[in-house]
């Protein structure tokens, strides 16, 4: 599994510089978590890596194996982004629909050949949604919707997964369950997870970075011990969470003071 190297990344919106000359390496097959307060530029960095429009950008996103990063990314956003007119099965196979060529359409090749359908159903089984395959998303609960979004991400089968606070809107128990499920199913993939929850970052991240300041800078990586997902009973994890929370609180207290000067 290859590393993804972000070199000298800069982003500005007009006169406002979000970050400048930012360097970050996402280790191949590992989870990197990016922690930071609201509006610091976490999502913008993720969009920049994904090649999505985000202000005036500069810098390079390189893969260690020399191939471009485009078409090797699966995107999981804060909202589940399920399309309300498609069933769960149709939603998780959206990529297959969107990449269907004119030739496929003209030759009336099926959108979901049996092998693709089998794969989709096996993924739905893994996320526990087999029975919901043919219903519309509006009938699903928040947790089920996010599991369907995870299934869609898995269906894309991309080596790099970019996650933008995907569990942010869920209740505590559902969030923990989904974190465990994501860890299990995205094993051996390179994952960049953005979150504002220090505990989530410490549970899931092989490396945890904190993005702060203006223009935003990355702190040195925190590398909590042990395999992910880490247990909540680990005292050292809780101590680290306390330190990170303190740091985040301090940061949010400083911001209005800096603005007043």
């Amino acid at each position, binding site marked *: 599994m290859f590393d993804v190297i972000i070199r000298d990344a800069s982003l500005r919106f007009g006169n406002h510089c979000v970050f400048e000359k930012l360097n970050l390496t996402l280790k191949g097959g590992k989870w990197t978590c990016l922690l930071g307060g609201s509006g610091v530029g976490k999502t913008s960095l993720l969009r920049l890596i*994904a090649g999505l429009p985000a202000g005036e950008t500069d810098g390079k996103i390189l893969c260690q194996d020399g191939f471009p990063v485009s078409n090797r990314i699966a*995107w999981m*956003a804060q909202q589940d982004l399920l399309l309300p007119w498609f069933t769960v099965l149709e939603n998780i196979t959206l990529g297959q*629909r*969107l*990449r269907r*060529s004119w030739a496929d359409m003209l030759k009336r090749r099926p959108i979901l050949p049996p092998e693709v359908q089998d794969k989709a159903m096996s993924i739905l089984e893994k996320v526990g949604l087999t029975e919901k395959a043919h219903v519309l998303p509006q009938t699903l609960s928040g947790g089920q919707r996010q599991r369907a979004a995870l299934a869609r991400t898995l269906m894309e089968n991309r080596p790099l997964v970019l996650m933008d606070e995907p569990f942010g809107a869920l209740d505590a128990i559902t969030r923990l369950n989904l974190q465990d499920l994501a860890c299990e199913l995205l094993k051996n993939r390179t994952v960049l997870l953005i979150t504002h929850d220090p505990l989530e970052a410490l549970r899931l991240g092989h490396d945890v970075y904190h993005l702060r300041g203006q223009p935003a800078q990355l702190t040195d990586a925190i590398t909590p011990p042990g395999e992910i997902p880490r247990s909540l009973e680990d005292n050292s994890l809780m101590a680290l969470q306390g330190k990170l929370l303190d740091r985040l609180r301090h940061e949010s207290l400083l911001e209005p003071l800096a603005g007043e000067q």
Partner: protein
Amino acid sequence: MKDSIKPFVVLFGLLVLWHTLVIAFDMPDYILPSPVDVAKSMAENASLLWEHTLVTLSEMLLGLLLGVLLGIVLALVLVYFAALRPWLLPPLLVTQAIPVFALAPILMLWFGYGLTSKVVMTILVIFFPVVTCCYDGLRHTHQGWLDMAQTMGGNRFAILRNIRWPAALPALASGLRVAVVVAPIGAVVGEWVGSSAGLGYLMLQANARLWVDQMFAALTVLAFCSITLYYTTDRLLRRFIPWQPETSQE
């Protein structure tokens, strides 16, 4: 009470009110005939009304079909060919700024007294709500869906077909609901300016002879066609867009 019965109850109430007014103010027939007189006239002239209804209905439906198709095509052009937008929007607004009544005589001159001029009038009337609603719907696709589609490597047509188009359908549906209600205006105005058939023509003829009951009979049939068309369209739209958000819960 079931929702489907309510419109009929309202209609019945209005008829009773109408009849009461006629009796209470002792209205002469040539000013306001009673609903009973109108019903009699409808029964006596059933075949005549049917013949003219078919003409007006075909004008309306053909105008609706072509207007909606044209509206959708223009909305797609406006969304996907940004460079054409400043060229297309002013003429589009001009078609609406000039009252359709003022255009009617010119359209008669160009397209004759037959079906074509009425269809063009109907198209002109319904075209604008369809274009604006469809264009708005297509423009306001959830950015998250489009971002996701981009990371999936979707092609433009597939994104339109699977995401932008279905996402625009609720907005287009609003345009269609307006279109079916105003379509009769185009057709009837066309018939008033110059025609040899249709409910508008029948009303003009009846008016000239002071056959007010027949006028009202034609008007009733026209209203019935409009209401039926609206409810049929509404039902179909709800059926084909089951995910359409409804925020006003009972």
